[in-house]
């Protein structure tokens, strides 16, 4: 036991001290936050700039109809402007009536206009023309608007599960997909790390030196647990960093949104009655914080560890039977990667229906359960299913570790040729 501890410590310390570990741990959350902040900043910035559009309308047909209520577009009616001098007078665009066609307006801009500018001018003109037509046929605009509003009251989503908690399909989807994909990626990263570690021991010829002091199984287990601890450390650091950064981010949110969030949390019923009152951002925040986070994080850690243990021992077995040639490793890795990828496919194609058969079986079978169950977790699957899935995963990794240990112990001392699957199966059932 003491020896396994020493091996775990070495595997852990040498990796955590490594510069790439520090870089990936601290840079990744920072990059995600910067990416989100950057894209928000850019979209906000591009909205700020409003366009001044000159409008030459000799018939003065549109002048009473077009209202400058949006900050993005500013129409100026000026008869002295023409296609030659509109840029000099500081306009971004010029709309004029084309005399060759009846009621046909043409937009001219110094450079090609952006899609959003064109479509907003177009919708403005259309809206103005539509209002004009409504007025002409004697329909009051305000009356029509009130009719439209009334019809939207006939249907709304209650947003509450039977346990009286607000649930939101979109948030569930995002949480399920996000945690599933995270497990999928980490299983590959840390599984491959185990495999490379075993290959390093074999190609450096240290394996035989080591197994004269410790049993091969101890060596394999120590490596798996050590690298697993590295992965767990990295994940926990990411969670801590991300939540610290999001706290910083919420501090910059307007105060009224935060007070709305609290109001929704205290009394979910108000959301439905006064939906319009609340900001979309506030609703989203309330939905996110209403999820059962302790369960989600707890399950995430369990399925990360379980899935990692299940697959890393298989990766270790592959690492032990190949030699220096990375090509050999790839062909042997494929059968291990297939179920992981398959689990991800189940998750991504059935996430909209988290209770269907594919998701149920996918979340029970240990080959795919770490990924698929995380997709179901935010919709609170029945307790017995969760418990059964966990028990099967524990049984699964005990089995794969036992099997991998048998292959590993022979493979690690074999030099020269790559073992075939047939030989590996033979090693498994040898005493």
């Amino acid at each position, binding site marked *: 036991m003491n020896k396994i501890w020493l091996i775990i410590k070495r595997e852990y310390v040498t990796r955590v001290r490594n510069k790439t570990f520090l870089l990936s741990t601290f840079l990744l959350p920072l990059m995600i936050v910067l990416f989100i902040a950057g894209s928000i900043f850019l979209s906000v910035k591009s909205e700020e700039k409003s366009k001044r559009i000159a409008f030459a309308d000799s018939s003065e047909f549109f002048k009473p109809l077009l209202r400058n209520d949006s900050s993005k577009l500013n129409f100026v009616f000026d008869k002295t402007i023409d296609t030659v001098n509109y840029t000099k007078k500081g306009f971004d665009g010029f709309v004029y009536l084309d005399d060759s066609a009846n009621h046909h307006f043409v937009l001219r801009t110094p450079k090609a206009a952006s899609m959003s500018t064109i479509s907003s001018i177009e919708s403005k003109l259309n809206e103005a023309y539509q209002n004009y037509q409504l007025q002409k046929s004697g329909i009051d605009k305000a009356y029509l608007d009130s009719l439209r509003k009334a019809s939207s009251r006939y249907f709304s989503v209650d947003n509450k599960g039977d346990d009286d908690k607000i649930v939101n399909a979109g948030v569930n989807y995002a949480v399920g997909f996000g945690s599933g994909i995270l497990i999928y990626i980490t299983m590959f990263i840390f599984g491959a790390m185990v495999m490379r570690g075993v290959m390093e021991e074999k190609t450096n010829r240290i394996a035989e*030196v080591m*197994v004269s002091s410790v*049993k091969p199984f101890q060596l394999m287990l120590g490596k798996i647990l050590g690298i697993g601890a590295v992965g767990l450390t990295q994940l926990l650091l990411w969670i801590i960093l991300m939540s610290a950064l999001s706290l910083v981010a919420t501090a910059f949110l307007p105060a009224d949104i935060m007070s709305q969030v609290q109001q929704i949390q205290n009394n979910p019923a108000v959301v439905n009655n006064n939906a319009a009152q609340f900001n979309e951002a506030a609703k989203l925040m309330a939905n996110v914080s209403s999820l059962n986070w302790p369960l989600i994080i707890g399950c995430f850690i369990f399925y990360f560890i379980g899935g990692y243990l299940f697959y890393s021992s298989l990766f270790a077995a592959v690492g032990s039977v190949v030699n220096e040639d990375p090509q050999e490793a790839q062909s042997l890795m494929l059968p291990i990667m297939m179920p992981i990828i398959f689990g991800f496919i189940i998750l991504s194609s059935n996430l909209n229906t988290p209770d269907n058969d594919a998701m149920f079986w996918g979340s029970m079978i240990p080959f795919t359960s770490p990924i698929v169950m995380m997709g179901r977790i935010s919709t609170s699957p029945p307790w017995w299913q969760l418990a059964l899935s966990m028990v099967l995963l524990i049984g699964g990794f005990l089995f794969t570790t036992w099997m991998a240990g048998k292959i590993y112990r022979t493979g690690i*001392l074999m*030099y020269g040729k790559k073992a075939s699957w047939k030989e590996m199966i033979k090693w498994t059932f040898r005493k």
Partner: protein
Amino acid sequence: MNILELQNLKKYFATQKAVDDISFNIAQGDIFGLLGPNGAGKTTLLRMITGIFYPDSGEVVFNGRKFDPINDTAYIGYMPEERGLYKKMKIGEQAVYLAQLKGLSKADAMSKIKAWFVKFEMESWWNKKVEDLSKGMSQKLQFVTTVLHEPKLIILDEPFSGLDPVNANLIKDEIFSLAQKGSTIIFSTHRMEQVEEICNHIVLVNKGKKILDGTVKEVKNEFKENMYRIGAAILPEDLQHPAFEVIKHKPDELLLKLAPGTKTNDVLQYFISKNITVNTFSEVFPSLNEIFIKLVEGTKNARQFQEI
């Protein structure tokens, strides 16, 4: 007292009888040579002694008790032929780590490593990485990590490969002094001149079977061919006598093969009667190299795959 007794060890692989019923004993303090051509089963034998493989049948008795791989490996230091170290690890840490795996405490390991590093003039290496070392340097480090925990049984498989004569002598002297302190050393090689120089007890295996066992002296006696070398100032050409046959003739030296039952004094008498002043007269023993070749030759050189 025997530190190690092998009793009818067998280990069969899918296509080979790697070790086929081998028994021998090694006494404490011996420097024991395990010899054999490539693929004779030496490494498999050593792996069973170090507890890496379990024998299919037969028993290993270590220090008077049945060998217990889990606890007894602390008393064994094994330097395999396929050896290496973690490339990215610092040398000092690496040595401490390997010593701890053999059951030494950290402080104990540190002081022992420092002492060895001083002895081998390696003090400045502590914070270097293994990848910075030359082959000879890492060989020295490997030797230190093998003997650091003062094992009762030290197993060295081709310990001098890659070492220059100066460093090889350094290691050789350490082997002698370790044996003097009571450690037993198993030494596996196919370099016979080293065996002759270092070992006092040898076993030769070929094709999984033991074909020779004894002290170097016994073995040489067994294979001697009654050859004598005689040296004199001037030796005439026409020396003939029924008691011996001249194998080689040099102006001042003769190699004689004595006829069975001849006494050496009879030969000397003949030379004295011929009025030849004899300077030297000594028995010639075959070298281990000659014995090795004689025994192994004739069997098929490469091992054949066989059905079990």
